């Protein structure tokens, strides 16, 4: 963040010296990153570099072997996915964590359903609120009663994101949102992210394998290599070409070893 003077505002999310291994494999060695409020950060890196692992730790699915997580400057220990969600951190996975056989509104409310006094599901209320929320976010689907299996990839993704936003996530983690998606569908998601950015309340980390796609919508890029963040620049100060060079060089180096 060159050029800015004065006290820097507290990041929405900070990660310090994070490490995680699975048996013989060290996924994360010493990861340090931060995410400012209202910022969209791209986390890129080669396959198997550890991006998904980092995401899973940040949303409470895994526990780290070492390191701290700070939320708005305060250290937190994430005990579970539910706990992380209650603190405002939510993730949207590659498989979207959507259940194909369930309707849009059931998926919107998955694990946070509304119930009647009889403890049965309050389908009518959930239907109504889901419809309102999706309209508000500009997500276009024919009906909230449709099973998500019948929707397109872009629509499913949108619902997954809408679900997180509805649950008042302040830090949103998107895992490869554009994977296996065509240009037109991908545009839907990018619009959604821009919309979130415009509102200024949600901070987003996008994990992307294909960073060319996300270059436009992100404010800053971090490159995860060898379990560490080796590159951290604003998108305005770098280019797709520079990133590509870095990655190719790394590739060449690893081949000669």
């Amino acid at each position: 963040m060159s050029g800015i003077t004065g006290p820097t505002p507290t990041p929405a999310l900070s990660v310090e010296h994070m490490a995680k291994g699975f048996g013989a494999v060290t996924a994360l060695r010493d990861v340090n990153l931060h995410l400012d409020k209202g910022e969209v950060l791209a986390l890129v890196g080669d396959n198997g570099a550890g991006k998904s692992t980092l995401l899973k730790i940040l949303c409470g699915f895994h526990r780290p072997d070492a390191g701290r997580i700070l939320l708005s400057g305060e250290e937190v220990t994430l005990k579970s996915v539910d706990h992380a969600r209650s603190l405002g951190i939510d993730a949207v996975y590659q498989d979207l964590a959507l259940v194909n056989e369930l309707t849009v509104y059931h998926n919107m409310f998955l694990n946070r359903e509304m119930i009647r006094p009889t403890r049965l599901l309050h389908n009518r209320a959930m239907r109504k609120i889901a419809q309102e929320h999706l309209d508000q976010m500009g997500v276009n689907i024919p009906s909230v009663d449709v099973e998500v299996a019948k929707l397109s990839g872009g629509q499913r993704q949108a619902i997954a994101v809408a679900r997180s936003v509805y649950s008042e996530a302040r830090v949103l983690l998107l895992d490869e949102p554009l994977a296996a998606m065509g240009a037109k569908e991908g545009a839907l998601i990018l619009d959604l992210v821009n919309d979130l950015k415009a509102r200024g309340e949600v901070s987003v980390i996008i994990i992307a394998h294909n960073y060319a796609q996300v270059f436009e919508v992100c404010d800053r890029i971090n490159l995860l290599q060898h379990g560490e963040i080796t590159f951290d620049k604003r998108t305005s100060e770098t280019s797709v070409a520079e990133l590509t060079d870095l990655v190719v060089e790394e590739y060449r180096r690893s081949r000669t070893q």
Partner: protein
Amino acid sequence: MSERAVQDAIDGKTTTAGTPPVRRHGPLRLAFEAFVVRREATIFIVAVALLLYFWSNNSDFLARNNLVNLSQQTAPYAIIAAGMVLLLVSGEIDLSVGAVFALSPFLMHYMIDYYGTYPIVAIIGSILAGAVIGLVNGFVVVVLKVPSFVATLGMLFLILGIMLTTSHAYPAQIPEAAHGVRGWFGQSDWSELIWCLIIVAYFHVVLTRSRWGLYTIATGGNPLGASEAGIRTGRIKFGNFMVTSALGAFAGILEAFRVDSIDPTSAGADGASPMFTAVSAAVIGGTALAGGSGTVVGALLGALVLAELRNGFNLIGINANPFNIILGAAIILSMVLNVYLTRLRRAGRR
């Protein structure tokens, strides 16, 4: 709405102009459409068709005491199927429930005759024992990560062996002390049916209108996604295993009271017969073996279809050997009809 208009809507190209005005239908048409839309509609039609066929063949098919027969051939398997549907939907299966079915009346007998327990307490105790067996099944599958087919297969032999050993493979008499309650628990004509209807209604509501049912569907449909969403899929599976075994134990007690004897061969020589019937009923009724979708009322109708086939062909007078040929062919035919009607139903919805 025309097919193209709907497809456009799904693609995100909704426009309000250009869609035809909504036609108003009479209440009868609305009721018909509401019925046809349900996934149980097709198996219901098959059940009614069989009813009419056998009745036209032999009017005694619908005589009162044959209706009692039919209900007694349906109820125990529908009861087991109510739990089995939940378990199948959550992505698992329990092969051992037939052995639990055979063991539980013996447990009741031991409790009453060797430990002087009150009959009602003994009945509840046997059902709880069934739940414990389900708990063990759940533990082996969820914690030890053994696939449920194999795990419950092992449990089947274990429970069958326990039953045969403790009973010395000898039939036992219904305890005298239980004579007072046996009317409520299977001996009187309609008691099995009444229990069956209560249990099926309860679990149908659980599957379709409760969080447990929703999480069950999620666990079976997208186990990884469900757990990523924070659903405790392990707990769901534990619970469904316990429900299935407990219902198996209850069905075994009902049948023991119905035939007025506790037999080591009541589940067939291999302890699997009631389980097969229950799973068949569930699948015929519309529950997917692979998990993620199912219907409890459908399983009841599936059990009814199987009972109609057995009872009806027996009434006609088919002998035991060709009987199996006819039963097998009839099951396949019913399923083909079911699948065909389902396809019609789905096409009609567009």
